[in-house]
């Protein structure tokens, strides 16, 4: 068999294949974008109707079943507090776990075990996290339903996401930078704090934001831990609170049109909050990145 050599024109067969595959790739992209755009479209067009000052500043207290008006202030406060508390618990633990896995674990037994359990935790259905907090925190320890209990459940869901994404980012930091720092006589912990983490900072922030976005929309664990309320409760440690996902869930289950409208607006608000948080994270990354100064 002889191998054909020499410079030849592009064959028709390859040109056709190129076109066909290109077409398929564009088609796949279009199909992937359809649900995204339609969800956004539905939420925005249906949610804008009630997206007003009253919605953002009032609760559902003393709003009758058929009454229009009312708002989600109590749910917005609840979601913000719960997600903030969950982040305060999950981000430091997740970050330190990732630092251990990448910088200290050396693929030893303990680090492989942690990796394994983190993988399992990633797959835990959110209702299970809620059930766990309900069973342990509320039933066994006798704590009340509260925003904090919800935050505990959310932090269980956040932690593996933070660990995984931070781990990936830390592994991307070139070893040469660690060695450069060691060679200057900088202790390992300072190298991690001052060289490794800042280098991976942008990626870590993105990962944390993904985790926040994921738990901000969780409904099932909140259902079992923060309970329901129509009133404003600003104290996340005491008494039932509300959350936006719960609000949407509750309102959409009611038969009245005014409630359905409120549910759509609640969904829109939730999307806006997550988008806003993402924007803030982008700003922080941009502000911290060396390219800005360059």
């Amino acid at each position, binding site marked *: 068999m002889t191998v054909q050599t020499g410079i030849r024109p592009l064959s028709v067969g390859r040109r056709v294949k190129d076109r066909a595959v290109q077409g398929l790739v564009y088609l796949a992209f279009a199909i992937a974008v359809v649900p995204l755009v339609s969800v956004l479209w539905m939420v925005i067009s249906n949610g804008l109707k009630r997206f007003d000052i009253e919605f953002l500043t009032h609760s559902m207290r003393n709003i009758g079943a058929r009454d229009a008006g009312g708002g989600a202030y109590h749910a917005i406060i609840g979601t913000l507090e719960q997600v903030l508390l969950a982040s305060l618990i999950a981000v430091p633990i997740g970050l330190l776990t990732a630092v251990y896995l990448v910088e200290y674990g*050396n*693929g030893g037994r303990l680090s492989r075990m942690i990796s394994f359990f983190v993988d399992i935790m990633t797959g835990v259905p959110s209702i299970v996290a809620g059930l766990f907090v309900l069973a342990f925190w509320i039933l066994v320890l006798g704590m009340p339903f509260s925003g904090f209990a919800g935050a505990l459940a959310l932090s269980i869901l956040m932690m593996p996401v933070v660990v995984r994404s931070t781990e990936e980012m830390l592994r991307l930091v*070139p070893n*040469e*930078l*660690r*060695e*450069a*720092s*060691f*060679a*200057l*006589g*900088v*202790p390992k912990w*300072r*190298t991690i704090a*001052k*060289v490794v983490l*800042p*280098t991976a*900072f942008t990626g870590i922030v993105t990962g944390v934001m993904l985790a926040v976005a994921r738990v901000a929309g969780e409904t099932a664990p909140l259902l079992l831990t923060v309970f329901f309320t129509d009133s404003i409760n600003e104290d996340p440690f005491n008494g039932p609170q509300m959350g936006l996902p719960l609000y949407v869930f509750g309102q959409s289950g009611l038969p009245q049109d005014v409630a359905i409208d409120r549910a759509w607006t609640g969904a829109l608000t939730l999307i806006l909050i997550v988008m806003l948080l993402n924007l803030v994270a982008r700003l922080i990354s941009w502000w*911290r990145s*060396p*390219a800005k*100064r*360059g």
Partner: protein
Amino acid sequence: MAKQIEVSDLDAYYGSHKAIEGISMTIEPRSVTAFIGPSGCGKSTFLRTLNRMHEVIPGARVEGKVRLEDQDLYGANVDPVSVRRTIGMVFQRPNPFPTMSIFDNVAAGLRLNGRFSRSQLDGIVEESLKGANLWNEVKTRLNKPGAGLSGGQQQRLCIARAIAVRPQVLLMDEPCSALDPISTLAIEDLISQLKQEFTIVIVTHNMQQAARVSDRTAFFNLAAQGQPGKLIEMDETSRIFTNPTQKATEDYITGRFG
């Protein structure tokens, strides 16, 4: 400032693989010592044992003695961090910290090790950049990222960063192998200046470079792939390149192998 290093019967391992075996040598202060030899003969590994950077790699360990004047670097109570503070290192590929400006890169070793006032830092940074022949090129943009410099400038930045902490010995692991001839020349000039103050050890694949910059040269070789590298001979550079005692050295420098 500069001190003598004395190595006796040193072995280094990666896990169960012995990378270098039975190395003994004396490195003179205020001079340039070059390590030459074929790839894989353990020159870089040996260099990294001199400031305890070898053991940073998981599973790597060292047997034998390294003495800096009268201190045993591998003594039971010795803090490896303090060893690295005393014996600085420049790597093959320039590796400035990407998140830091030029100024912060040079000040990194000082800042990460202790408290210095801004004026102290200013003084040391300027002095170090001048010492690395980089001051005139960067003095107007000290707050720009270090990663924005050219390769040769980055390597000089790394040298400035290494000498800013005032080490007694400076180890250089093929510092010019990623650089063009002009940057290489700049660094070689710099090495000749730095030896007034520091003890310098340089690993190089470039024999002309060893001949140009070093006072003494050590030739490393390994019997076969997978065998540990050994020190074949070490002498005045002029003697190694004109009249080596070992056949292997002569074969290597005349280009008959390696």
